[in-house]
């Protein structure tokens, strides 16, 4: 596609509910990243894929967070038993190995998760 697409755009979850956030990266982009952005803060790294391999998940806040990219394209970030502190915007970005240096990451518009 022309850009990185994320869905849903907004999600309201009751505390304890499981949620799944979807990211469609730019076609052909090898690398895919998930970031969490709290209000007034910069994006915080969560996890990173190269094709279907999850190379780094050091930023995932707890074992309630899980990400996958089974076929090396679409990725899903799942949060189990959501807590109020999980409320944030979740950003997905993609890049090709060669374009990352010259053109940076391409971000989606994010999913705003509100846990009530």
């Amino acid at each position, binding site marked *: 596609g022309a850009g990185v697409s994320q869905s849903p755009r907004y999600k309201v979850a009751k505390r304890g509910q499981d949620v799944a956030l979807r990211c469609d990266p730019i076609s052909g982009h090898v690398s895919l990243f998930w970031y969490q952005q709290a209000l007034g803060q*910069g994006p915080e*790294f969560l996890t990173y894929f190269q094709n279907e391999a999850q190379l780094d998940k050091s930023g995932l806040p707890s074992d309630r967070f899980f990400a996958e990219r089974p076929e090396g394209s679409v990725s899903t970030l799942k949060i189990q038993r959501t807590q109020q502190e999980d409320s944030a915007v979740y*950003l997905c970005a993609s*890049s090709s190995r060669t374009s990352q*240096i010259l053109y940076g990451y391409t*971000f989606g518009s994010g999913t705003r998760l509100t846990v009530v």
Partner: protein
Amino acid sequence: SQKIEQNSEALNIQEGKTATLTCNYTNYSPAYLQWYRQDPGRGPVFLLLIRENEKEKRKERLKVTFDTTLKQSLFHITASQPADSATYLCAHPLGRDDKIIFGKGTRLHILP
């Protein structure tokens, strides 16, 4: 641990003047720095990259400098316009990984 510091307080600049934003990094010497713009409700958009061996990079009304001695990058917008109002984020990679870390960003308001 690696850290990027940006003045997170809002910066108000009169239209037509030059806006200068500061990015300081600690405990690490990145091979390059990136600057992004983020508008409310949108994801960051890549603007410029400057490598460690480059002192200055320009793109239209934008200029970025990189001082590896001071561990600092300055981001300038000349002839600023109200449409330049946004949050500007500084970022750099961690080691050989493709992943990058971001500062908190600086909110810029260009006053008409």
